[in-house]
């Protein structure tokens, strides 16, 4: 009998609001410890939290994009726990009436389409950062991150493989980025994923699940799922028992280890948060948020394919990141040439991103310069080689294309006489190759063509040169 894996996810997304969820401290990442802290987020007695309107709006945006029901009357609850990362000894979260419920996200994994159920999305405050003294006996607390707004997006246990999980996370990240609500930088912790996993005999009763934390990349998530699946099957195969526990993934060594047992430790004693008023989302507000939703990746893909006649493959590459599709749209609009712009973005720009190890989120290119280049190459003013060279110079050094082309003599030579002269010289200096060609060696033509282009300094019009060379060899 076969084993089946059952996985559910909890994703924490830090919202890109300028200020914290309940106070006006800035949410910027990093910085000197405890420099973005006030009495509210430090949990001083007598302070009163006040909800950041943008947090509720961002939550509704995500809920709408994930086809959720929006809870029209929602509220906050206190989750009590003792750990010094939250100075109040409780986290303000939502248990009884989360802002969004029962949504869906359709993903494609292993060539198959699958609809993943979203159980709920709730708003909560992030905790601070602890640094433990290795040698001594102390813990240092930095509350800069305390109160940074978070959305927790919880799925039903609908996944059966690592591939499905990764496909979901990629689509979720893409959606959050396009909505402009989260920068999704896993390395900075703005997107954090906990994996709940159990195994069972195919069609049998649900097994005991473990929760995995400290997963810092999609790759690590895939590896951790494979490891945990294998671990549980091994234990159960030998007649053993899986314990419900939180496990920490150690990506360097490719293993996970138990952190704490959930059997006796956690009792959060939730109760309604008395310091915050409930939130009521009326029709008008909901309509306004709906109207402010930007075009999402899958909608952009459809538009590119239908309106611009761009290939499905290119449309997919362009929409993998908001910055890439943003660049494409600028170049396409300014040049009036969407097809050539698509080739540029999916070809040269993607190649340069890979070559320089640049993440799409760090991409900053002047679309006007690229649009000018698209026009120069499609008008036949520069040839493909000069085009690629100048694109690279814009990418790496932000040069001004027209200046760069002039300085490096890259403007295409469309001058008949110059081309004929170059052909003449090439032929007289390479009589061997000329003889070879005349003796039927087709390959010699390519060599002679290279010689002609070389004499034109690489900026010759290749069509013109080919024709002149053929004429001369007749």
């Amino acid at each position, binding site marked *: 009998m076969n084993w089946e894996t059952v996985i559910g996810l909890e994703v924490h997304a830090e919202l890109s*609001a*300028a*200020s914290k969820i309940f106070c*006006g*401290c*800035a*949410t910027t990442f990093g910085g*000197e*410890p*405890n*420099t*973005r*802290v*006030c*009495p509210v987020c*430090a949990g*001083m007695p007598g302070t009163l939290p*006040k*909800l*950041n*309107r*943008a*947090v*509720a709006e961002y939550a509704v945006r995500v809920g709408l994009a994930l086809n959720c029901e929006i809870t029209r*009357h929602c*509220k906050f609850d206190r989750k009590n726990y*003792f*750990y*010094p990362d939250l*100075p109040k000894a409780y986290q303000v979260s939502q248990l*009884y009436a989360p802002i969004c419920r029962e949504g869906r996200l359709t993903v494609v994994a292993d060539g198959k389409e699958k609809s993943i159920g979203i159980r709920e999305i709730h708003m909560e405050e992030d905790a601070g950062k*602890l*640094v*433990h*003294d290795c040698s*001594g*006996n*102390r*813990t*240092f*607390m*930095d*509350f800069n991150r305390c109160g940074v707004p978070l959305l927790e997006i919880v799925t039903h246990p609908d996944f059966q493989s690592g591939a499905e999980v990764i496909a979901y996370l990629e689509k979720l990240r893409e959606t959050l980025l396009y909505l402009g609500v989260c920068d999704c930088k896993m390395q900075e912790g703005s997107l954090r994923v906990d994996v709940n996993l159990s195994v069972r005999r195919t069609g049998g009763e649900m097994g005991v699940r473990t929760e995995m934390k400290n997963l810092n990349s999609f790759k690590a998530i895939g590896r951790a799922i494979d490891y945990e699946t294998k671990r549980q099957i091994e234990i159960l195969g030998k007649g053993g028992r899986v314990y419900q526990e939180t496990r920490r993934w150690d990506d360097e060594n490719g293993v996970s280890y138990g*952190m*704490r047992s959930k059997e006796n430790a956690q*009792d959060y004693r939730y109760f*309604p948060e*008395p310091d*915050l*008023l*409930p*939130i*009521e989302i009326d029709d008008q507000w909901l309509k306004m948020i709906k109207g402010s939703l930007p075009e999402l990746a899958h909608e952009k893909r459809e538009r590119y394919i239908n309106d611009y006649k761009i290939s499905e493959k290119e449309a997919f590459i362009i929409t993998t990141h908001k910055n890439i599709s943003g660049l494409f749209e600028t170049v396409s609009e300014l040049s009036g040439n969407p097809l050539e712009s698509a080739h540029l973005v999916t070809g040269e720009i993607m190649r340069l991103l890979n070559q320089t190890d640049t993440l799409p989120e760090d991409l900053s290119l002047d679309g006007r310069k690229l649009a000018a280049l698209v026009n120069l190459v499609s008008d036949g003013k520069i040839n493909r080689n000069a085009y690629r060279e100048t694109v690279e110079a814009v990418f790496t050094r932000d040069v001004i294309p027209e200046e760069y082309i002039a300085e490096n003599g890259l403007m295409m030579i469309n001058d008949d006489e110059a081309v004929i002269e170059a052909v003449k010289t090439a032929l007289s200096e390479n009589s061997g190759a000329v003889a070879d060609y005349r003796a039927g060696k087709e390959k010699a033509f390519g060599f002679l063509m290279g010689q002609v282009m070389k004499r034109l300094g690489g900026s010759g019009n290749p069509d013109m040169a080919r024709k002149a060379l053929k004429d001369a060899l007749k």
Partner: protein
Amino acid sequence: MLIDEKLIEYLENLSCLTLSDGEKERLTADLGEILNNMARLEELNAKGVPERSHPFDDVNAFREDEAVCSFDRALILKNAPEENGEAFVAPKTVE
């Protein structure tokens, strides 16, 4: 709700405190007293009063998303029992 030694020990464990026998005894009495007082609420006739999660009728008290200056660090740290000039310091606590 019955406050007994078992419950006090559970709460002690949950809040990571260590109580002396004397403190446990006193807390059992104090918490029992508090609950007895709260139990008097049950004597009220609440028939027809709808269930609610908040004492006020108001909803939607928002602030706009604007980052303002945080407190001076030295001022915030002043409230800490122990600090090192940049961070709050607590006895080592590892999850």
